[in-house]
């Protein structure tokens, strides 16, 4: 006695044909020109086969997405995130935040690849940057993207902040998002400051000496802050690796986490209408005013 076969998973089961896709059965039999094995009937059946295969191929990505969605339950979140409502009057100024985000992603990607060639030691740093610029294939481009992208990101984050201020988009209930944005601004400037040392030429060395001493000029905490940045009272080899670690590990993680919080709040609270649009009066209020 043979045991019953184990049940097949749904994806492997033969699907029933879609209604209307079965080969015509009412046609007369025989081998005549209109019979079951006639030319026209064979061609028709072939075409139906092709159609069926096409449908099956189209089902593959849908079933993959369906498989993922069934196990993650992500689609309600994605729907709310991607297709959220925006107020009337939304315009190109509302893309400045996305532009800043894109600048950050570009910095992250080019930075990862620069780290593959960079040597954060006082004797090797300058030489490794020369090597990237002059010898590495496309190194000049990638390093240039990182170097100019830093400026672009700082400019964009300021313009984004100005847009938020002028449109009054920082007001209740969006104050917390403004605060997060200000922290992101400070972190971005800290990225610019720590990244400036890394080429380790005369300009970046002395600019960092001056920058650290500006930190030291803060009352009470200043001298301790400068000691933390330099890793001691003098500018040493540790200073360079410390700046490198802050630049490529500490701050990027903080920025990525805060960008997540920033975008979550934007999604949760929605964007504001531009200030030149007047709010529509509710019908009840309009009636009362008459």
């Amino acid at each position, binding site marked *: 006695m043979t045991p019953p076969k184990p049940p097949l998973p749904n994806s492997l089961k033969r699907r029933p044909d879609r209604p209307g896709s079965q080969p015509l059965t009412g046609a007369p039999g025989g081998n005549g020109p209109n019979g079951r094995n006639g030319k026209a009937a064979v061609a028709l059946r072939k075409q139906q086969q092709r159609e069926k295969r096409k449908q099956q191929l189209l089902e593959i990505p849908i079933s993959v997405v369906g498989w993922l969605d069934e196990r993650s339950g992500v689609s309600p979140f994605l729907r709310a995130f991607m297709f959220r409502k925006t107020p009337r009057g939304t315009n190109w100024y509302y893309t400045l935040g996305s532009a800043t985000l894109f600048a950050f992603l570009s910095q992250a990607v080019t930075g990862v690849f620069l780290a593959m060639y960079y040597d954060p030691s006082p004797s090797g740093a300058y030489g490794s940057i020369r090597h990237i610029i002059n010898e590495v294939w496309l190194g000049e481009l990638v390093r240039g993207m990182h170097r100019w992208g830093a400026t672009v990101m700082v400019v964009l984050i300021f313009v984004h902040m100005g847009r938020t201020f002028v449109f009054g988009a920082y007001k209740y209930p969006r104050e917390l998002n403004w605060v997060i944005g200000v922290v992101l601004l400070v972190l971005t400037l800290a990225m610019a400051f720590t990244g400036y040392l890394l080429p380790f030429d005369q300009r970046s060395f002395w600019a960092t000496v001056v920058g650290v*001493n500006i930190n030291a*000029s803060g009352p009470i905490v200043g001298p301790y802050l400068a000691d933390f940045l330099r890793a001691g009272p003098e500018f*040493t080899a540790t200073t360079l690796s410390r700046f490198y670690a802050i630049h490529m590990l500490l701050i990027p993680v903080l920025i990525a986490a805060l960008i997540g919080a920033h975008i979550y709040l934007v999604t949760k609270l929605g964007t504001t209408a531009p200030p030149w649009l007047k709010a529509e009066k509710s019908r009840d209020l309009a009636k009362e005013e008459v």
Partner: protein
Amino acid sequence: MSGGALAAGGIATAAIALPALGFALGPVAEDTIQDNWRDVGPESDFNATTYVPKVITIVPEVGGEVGKTTIYVRKAIAADKSPSDKGAPLPYVAISTRCMHLGCPVRYVQASQRFICPCHGGVYDYEGKVVGGPPVRPLDRFYTKVENGRVLVGKRFSLDSHLRRYKPRDPSNHVDGLWKYLYPSRPTT
């Protein structure tokens, strides 16, 4: 159960976070500059009327040009006796080229007998006292001594406007008047 789990989580977090934090902040509380004396040449190299530039290594472990700095050395005269000198005054005056505004390197100009900073226009007189620009105190100096006819340069110290000695401070930190209470001396120096 939940209390124990919370406590265990707290201990585990502290066990990771506290050493990491101490690792990063350690240099703030640690004196990393060794008390080493550096030979800058025989006594015959120096005189009491003008400065001789010498290059010394401040941080030996760095290597390359980064740990080096230029100092200006001359023989001390009677007028160089500091009010805080107890016993014998320093035999030589060794002036640091670190500008006391924000730390750029100053150079000595013999014609005007002034130290001049290229960054933001700080100017110091022959003794290193501020005569113009943004610096907040006179140029730092180094301890000096003579052994077997050779001039040795030791640790750095800072000075107030009366050339009294203080523990070394960062550039831009005041040591005069009420300002000095805003810039505490640190364990590192």
